[in-house]
């Protein structure tokens, strides 16, 4: 017979069980801003910005395709940064050698790494899909094994592997550390993807915007501003989703902890009952 848990443990379990919402006033406001920004972006991308002289209306795919990969890059860089923090905070002598992660900062960075990688994968998938559609219209093919496309799909598959690794059953510290190592290896591909069009001959065109000071820009007028606006919009949307994902990961941890506390409480009850 399972006895009722002790009050403080029961409260913890209830607390974890009742935390089913990831929203807050800030995220609701952010959500409204994100949705409004997407609406304005649609207006700019579909009606206000002009068709391209060569590509015609298909150029409008650029306003999804390019910001998607920029946001994905941001997600992967954040994953790498957070992973480095995890490794630092859980090194020997800083957080034990095995078991759960004792350091709350390390746990936070681990959640940041996970949420950012999920965003990166999501937006890389969007990049690949929109790029494929755009390629069909402009190049005349959905896919070619050129250096940019190949390294991008490799980036996607690598981070899918990273997310799979995070799901492997293990002690939280071991899981976090091995995921962090993989994130730091995977991020090496990022500059390769970005500079592949400069380093090798590719079907994919070179970068149209040089973001270095005094760099060239090969996009004119409303198209340029629409692209920058779309990037800002995608960033807000990614931030919104990312915060929710972070909180979901936190809730999963709380539920796990509550489950453990419940088991411990059962043990105490059994002992008190003389079993």
């Amino acid at each position, binding site marked *: 017979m399972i006895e009722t848990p002790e009050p403080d443990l029961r409260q913890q379990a209830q607390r974890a069980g009742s935390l089913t919402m990831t929203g807050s006033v800030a995220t609701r406001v952010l959500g409204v801003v994100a949705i409004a920004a997407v609406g304005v972006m649609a207006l700019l991308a579909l009606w206000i910005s*002009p*068709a*391209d*002289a*060569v*590509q*015609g209306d298909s*150029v409008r795919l*650029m306003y999804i395709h390019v910001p998607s990969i920029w946001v994905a890059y941001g997600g992967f860089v954040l994953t790498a940064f957070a992973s480095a923090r995890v490794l630092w905070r859980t090194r020997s002598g800083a957080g034990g050698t095995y078991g759960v992660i004792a350091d709350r900062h390390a746990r936070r960075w681990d959640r940041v790494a996970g949420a950012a990688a999920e965003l990166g994968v999501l937006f890389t998938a969007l990049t690949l899909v929109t790029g494929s559609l755009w390629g069909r*219209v*402009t*190049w*005349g*093919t959905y896919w*070619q*094994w*050129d*250096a940019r*496309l*190949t*390294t991008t*799909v*490799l980036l996607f*598959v*690598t981070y*899918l*592997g990273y997310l*799979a*690794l995070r*799901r*492997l*059953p293990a002690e939280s510290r071991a899981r976090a550390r091995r995921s962090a190592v993989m994130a730091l290896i995977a991020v090496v591909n990022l500059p390769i993807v970005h500079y*592949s069009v400069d380093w*090798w*001959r*590719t*079907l994919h*065109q*070179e*970068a*149209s915007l040089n973001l270095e000071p005094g760099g060239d820009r*090969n*996009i*004119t*007028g*409303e*198209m340029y501003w629409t692209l920058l606006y779309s990037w800002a919009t995608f960033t807000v949307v990614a931030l919104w989703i990312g915060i929710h994902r972070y909180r979901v990961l936190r809730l999963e941890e709380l539920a796990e902890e509550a489950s453990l506390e419940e088991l*411990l409480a059962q*043990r*105490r009850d059994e*002992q008190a009952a003389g*079993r």
Partner: protein
Amino acid sequence: MSDLSPRLPLPADADRVEARRELGRRRKVIVVTFGLLLLVAAVALFAIGLRDATEFFRNADEAIAARDELGERRFRLQGRVVPSSVTIDGGVTTFEVLHNCASVSVRHTANPPVLFQSPWIPVVLLGHWEEGDVVTVAGRDTHYFLSDDMVVKHTNEYAAANEDRLPAPTEAPEGFLDDCPFEVPRL
């Protein structure tokens, strides 16, 4: 102080614990299998990709220079389409591609992409050299390129369709023909 040391499951719980362990083992097998499949996919993608990726095409001038070496081997050829050279006859599109003032006569046997119609558009063609006397804007040649696959390689420049600063649609891009010792007929 409660005893929290590991214990053996009670007989009544044994099945449940075993079932949970089995579930854990199965989950682990699924995740490891999925991970290995992803790894294999990544390696395969990398191998396939790298085979072609680093030198995706040869420019027209390089293809001419390497003609003996290439023989009848299939490769990708890149150049800008000379607008005045395009003719279509019986499903075969004949045109010239130009790069670094070297011109290659092309016979393309498949349907070209829609953007092929844009003057001076860069294209990448998959095919091989064939012997045959041809005349190009650069002069006579003993070979032409027989192609059955074409992709358009658009540039990284974007401008509104009606923008004033654009060159007239049939003019070559600025500087493209500057060093060429021949004239290219206008469309």
